[in-house]
């Protein structure tokens, strides 16, 4: 999986809506606000190409043909856990609004016709969140399996002694792993390490 490009690059946003005009209009709106936005008519097509061109944020309709917005969100998350998802719908219900945020990790639930400012704010927030996620993943990606185990325990606040005991290693080995983790992630102290794990 390739990464979403350096931070200076334009953020990538996909819009999924079975209304071609609306998708295009939202895409143009987001382009005007500095995003590289691309409309998709069919969620299946986006899923088939997504792995090669992951996005920071996906804005998706809920009521669509074969695959609804929630099912689509689950599938995208499987491919890319670091993508932010914003739902939009012309059939708003309270139950869906709650589900979209709690169960499907949606960042917002927008009612059509949208409040433009809210859409732009939601996408901006999604992009920022996604960039942070990608940065964390990039910095922890180089860790070995053992280093990852140590990392997961250290960020929980355990001391090296406890980590060594839990993993059945010597304190010296754990200290070595910690040093390697610090080097690979470029973290400067425990606080930054914990911030990475968020």
């Amino acid at each position, binding site marked *: 999986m390739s990464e979403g490009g350096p931070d200076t690059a334009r953020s990538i946003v996909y819009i999924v809506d079975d209304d071609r005009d609306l998708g295009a209009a939202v895409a143009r709106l987001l382009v005007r606000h500095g995003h590289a936005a691309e409309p998709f008519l069919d969620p299946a097509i986006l899923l088939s190409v997504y792995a090669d061109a992951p996005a920071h944020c996906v804005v998706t309709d809920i009521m669509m043909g074969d695959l609804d917005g929630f099912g689509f969100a689950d599938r995208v998350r499987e491919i890319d856990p670091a993508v932010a998802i914003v739902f939009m719908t012309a*059939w708003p*219900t309270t139950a869906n609004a709650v589900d979209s945020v709690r169960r499907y990790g949606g960042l917002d639930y927008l009612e059509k*016709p949208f409040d433009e400012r809210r859409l732009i704010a939601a996408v901006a927030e999604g992009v920022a969140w996604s960039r942070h996620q990608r940065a964390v993943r990039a910095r922890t990606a180089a860790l070995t399996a053992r280093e990852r185990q140590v990392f997961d325990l250290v960020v929980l606040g355990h001391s090296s002694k406890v980590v060594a005991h839990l993993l059945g290693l010597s304190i010296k080995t754990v200290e070595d792993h910690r040093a390697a983790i610090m080097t690979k992630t470029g973290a400067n102290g425990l606080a930054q390490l914990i911030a990475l794990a968020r």
Partner: protein
Amino acid sequence: MIPVRAFLSSLLRSVRPRRADLPWIAGYAVAFLVSHHVAAMWGGQGFYSLLYPAAGLRIALLWSRGPRLTPAIAMAELVVQTVNGVIVPGAPGWIMAMIGVARPPLTYGAVVWAVRRLAPHLRSTLGVAPMPLAIGSIAAPVAASLVSLPWALWHPELTGADGASRLVASLTNFMVGDLLGVMLVAPPLLWAVQGAPGWRRVARIDRGRMLALGEAALVLGTAMALAVLLAAVGLGTPVTPGLLAVAWIGLRFGRTAGWCAVLVVAAITLPFTTGPLPLAERLALHMSLASVVVVGYLAGSFSDAQAKAQVDLARRDRMLFQAERLKTLRAMSVAVIHEISQPLSTIAIEASHLRVIAADADPEIAEAAALIDRKAATLSQLVRRLRRFGGRAVDEPSALPVAALIDMVAALVGPEAKAARTVLTIDPIDPNLFVLGQEIELSQAMMNLVRNALQACDGSVEIAAAREGDMVRIGIRNRCAPDQAMRPGMGVGGLVARAIVEAHGGTLTRQANAAGDVCATLTLPLAGAGQ
């Protein structure tokens, strides 16, 4: 002691006749005096009369003006009987005489009160007008004679009758006299007082009516002829043919026809009984006549009540059909809202962009773009509002600002008001008034009331809200333009509004004032006393 005193004083206040009642009471006293003397023609030993029209006056007044007039009516009768010399203040036994005079009107009042209280709770035809009146008209004379039984036993000299058989005869005479008086006199009086819809209907002659009249005349004529024939061959004066005839006429053609048939029978019978007849024979005749009258009037009332129940049923059916149509309409409008919201989203986005890029263009273009953007935004807001209103989802009750509720309702019915050329005004509303409830339901209730007001007539509709203790009172008042008749609706909207308001712990009342304004007032409990 305080509650008892408060209850008594409120009772006293309610039974004290109002200014508007005074002419009625005075008229009653005069009519009572006259009819009391007329009745003496059918008088006899141990009882006053076998036909007592004053009882009919009494029940007509009680029924039309309400049982609260009972004490005033009793007082009027006491005065009249003092003038008549029945009560001689200071003479021996005058207290008993007073009680004897006051007893029947008090009993009548109690019966009318009880019938009116019970009738709304009856599920059967008995509770449908005019059955309660018929029941009251029969129950009151019966009750009056039953109530006087203990007194007659205690003081036989009062009725002038001694011995069990004479006592029973006296009371039966009393009952029959009152029954005949009530049945023959009260219905036409009530029709006259209540605008006589029956008479206008009777006066209209058409083919069906002529046929009905012919049938009734044939039935009654045959019955009377049969009775006369039987009497002529010396077989007594049988009542059965007349009984069957009035029952038939009452059931077929209703109360007015039934009463007319009864009147014919009475007019033929009564002249025979004013002359010197043996008491037993006269009593028998009057009892027969009373049963004919009771049967005819009951049958007619029952038939009218059935017809009314049928009309109610048909109305309920129509309401059901309308509810069904509304359901379809709702589903359709939800679909339409969805279909609109999709392209509208595109239009709104593009319009807002167009406005930005056209800002520096030709002023005319910039202005047009700004206008399109504004209209798209207004339309978007309307769609969101309509959708929330039509939504099926039931939210948790929340604290709702009354001002916002009224604003939403006004925005939704605004176009309808404009189309109906009605001015909708909203008084300034305290923004600190909050009620706890379902936003959609409450706005639906208010919307129904406002729409009812709009549809009732052309003119103006005013909405006002004010705090009243720990409740908020919201008034929806419609003022009709002069010479405007109210257009009645189906009544579904009002029923729904009442159900919603009552479910929120509030009340809904409708009052009309003399100027023809109608004000629907709903009260709702304030949330957290206006936090």
